[in-house]
């Protein structure tokens, strides 16, 4: 733990010689006329904790079901460990899936549910015992081993489903919203357990989640999906700090989106872009991550926590606008200020609550300055 200098950064996706464990090559899945997964290319590497994020119905479960073998791609190939999986039936794939609906066997006890896959493998009795006990301990279900699924709570059922899919220690584990029914504390604990298991076993995880915080916590990389397509695949930090589109920026976390016309210019510090966004207000100065042409319509995305709220303009920051505090959302550790600018645009800015509430600097209807640097936001062309 205490030797970060030695630790190599885990980033196999940056190494062109690294072989992915899963490769999607132009995979399309249609249900009749409807395209659930649309010409998708993706590489997932051994030992990754890969999170799929996206709105309901965007094709996450379908993607998983193709990996598990319950659906076959209409077009394209899925390569698992160098082998096209198309001819391999689901029971022969080194893949286990935790179903979104849990799919626990109602006629079997919790213990028997977890042991089900091990028994099919023909494992010896005492090794099954040991493995099931380990899984029960891991998911804290020891007291419930003899109960039937209908005799336990929703969260407990979810843990049984998790334990059952983990028991066989597969090469690839697919988790379809594995922690949705757990309370926050148990969810966090289970997240760490999962990461721990993954470190110990080297299993590759693909996890579907609606909870972006969860994706941020556990994932090595996050894929944001929309309408059967991958919009962006990047590390959690990459997705958050450098979204490639308004869609991703808006989907992950809170963000202010400002529309405007770009004017590129060069300065001694490098390329910059001025965004004219409101009449009578100074243009926003930003550092572009991709080339923009003069007059191009762009979106400028800036996260609330990147904006400093102050009484007086902060001359050290390139962008400064004045506005009035309309609303304050107190969230315990931070407060989010909703500020209306002169042109009517609303901007959110959040500040950590270093001081006690009674000594807060700003209150409703205060005139404040919003300040941010030229590198704080991001210029998006789509």
């Amino acid at each position, binding site marked *: 733990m205490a030797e970060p200098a030695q630790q190599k950064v885990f980033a196999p996706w940056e190494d062109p010689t690294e072989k992915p464990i899963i490769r999607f090559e132009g995979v399309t899945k249609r249900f009749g006329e409807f395209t659930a997964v649309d010409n998708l290319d993706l590489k997932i590497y051994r030992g990754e904790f890969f999170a799929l994020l996206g709105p309901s119905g965007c094709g996450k479960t379908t993607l998983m079901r193709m990996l*598990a*073998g*319950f659906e076959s791609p209409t077009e394209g190939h899925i390569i698992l460990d160098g082998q096209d999986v198309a001819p391999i*039936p*689901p*029971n022969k794939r080194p*893949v*286990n*899936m935790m*179903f979104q*609906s849990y*799919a*626990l*066997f*109602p*006629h079997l006890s919790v213990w028997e549910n977890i042991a*089900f*896959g091990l028994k*099919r*493998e023909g494992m010896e009795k005492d090794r099954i015992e040991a493995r099931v006990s380990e899984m029960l301990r891991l998911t804290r279900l020891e007291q419930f081993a003899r109960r*039937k699924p*209908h005799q336990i709570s929703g969260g407990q059922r979810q843990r049984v489903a998790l334990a*059952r899919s983990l028991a*066989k220690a597969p090469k690839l584990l697919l988790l379809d919203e594995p922690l949705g029914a757990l309370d926050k504390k148990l969810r966090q604990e289970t997240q760490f357990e999962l990461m721990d298991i993954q470190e110990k076993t080297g299993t590759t995880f693909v996890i579907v989640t609606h909870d972006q915080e969860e994706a941020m916590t556990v994932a090595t990389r996050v894929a944001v999906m929309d309408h059967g397509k991958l919009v962006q695949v990047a590390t959690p930090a990459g997705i958050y700090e450098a979204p490639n589109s308004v869609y991703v920026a808006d989907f992950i976390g809170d963000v202010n989106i400002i529309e405007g016309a770009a004017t590129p210019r060069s300065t001694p510090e490098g390329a910059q872009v001025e965004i004219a966004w409101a009449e009578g207000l100074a243009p926003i100065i930003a550092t572009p991550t991709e080339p923009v042409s003069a007059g191009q319509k762009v979106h400028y995305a800036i996260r609330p926590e990147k904006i400093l709220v102050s009484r007086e303009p902060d001359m050290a920051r390139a962008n400064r606008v004045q506005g009035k505090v309309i609303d304050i959302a107190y969230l315990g550790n931070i407060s989010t200020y909703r500020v209306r600018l002169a042109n009517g645009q609303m901007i959110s800015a959040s500040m950590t609550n270093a001081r006690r509430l009674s000594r807060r600097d700003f209150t409703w209807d205060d005139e404040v300055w919003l300040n941010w640097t030229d590198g704080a936001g991001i210029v998006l062309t789509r």
Partner: protein
Amino acid sequence: MNYRRFLLIAVPYAWLALFFLVPFLIVLKIALSDTAIAIPPYTPTLDLSGGWAGIKAFFQGLDFENFVFLTEDSLYWKSYLGSLKIAAISTVLTLLVGYPIAYAMAQAADEWRPTLMMLVILPFWTSFLIRVYSWIGIIANEGLLNQMLMGLGIIDTPLQIMNTPSAVYIGIIYTYLPFMILPIYSALEKLDGSLIEAAVDLGCTRAAAFWRVTLPLSRPGVIAGCFLVFIPALGEFVIPSLLGGSQTLMIGKVLWEEFFSNRDWPVASAVAVVLLLILVIPIVLFQKNQEKAEEAGK
């Protein structure tokens, strides 16, 4: 409040007492009487005009002679055993025919299911007697089946199916098939398809998944179907007498003959009472199964 509850409970019990218990007591009473050439054809009859002495004389006239008689003539216990055997075998055969049909129905596309269900229930729209009679036209020596097989040159001499136990099995399977299909179908229909996928995901072949998941989960339906076939088949009278001929010994037929050919009401009643006692066992087991299934469904 209590009064209403009492009423609610009393009505079904009164119904049962009036239409089940009282007739049963009458039958039991006749079973304990002796045959007589009279109307009604048994003695003693209760004559209240004789007062207390009359009642005493009435009870003294009752005895277990007829039940003892049932054990003495091998016809009766052979018929009981014959009925049990035929009911058991035809239950198994009905299960073997009915389960695949129920399974196919449950697998069928949603829009087809009401139609298939309809087809299963459709035979109930015509008289049971007519349907059994029409089987004679099919399986008789000069019937449709034999004519077709001979016409195709598969056989030279007609198959003797009529008046054999096979005919009875065919009749029972045909008649009671819906009672087998419906409970199994309702169990299979509720089965969540992702359970099969989970089993396959955990290493089962499709066949193993059927064996380990589908079959156990349809068990309450199978048991219900078996009882629904076994219980009426045990006392079945029409099918063996129409299709089974004289060779087939079934207690329902014996009962009919005692009543209507021999006019020996007391012995016939004794046969009925014993049949009922035999049936109580599977009926109680059936109730237990239903309760268990209900509990598991919660």
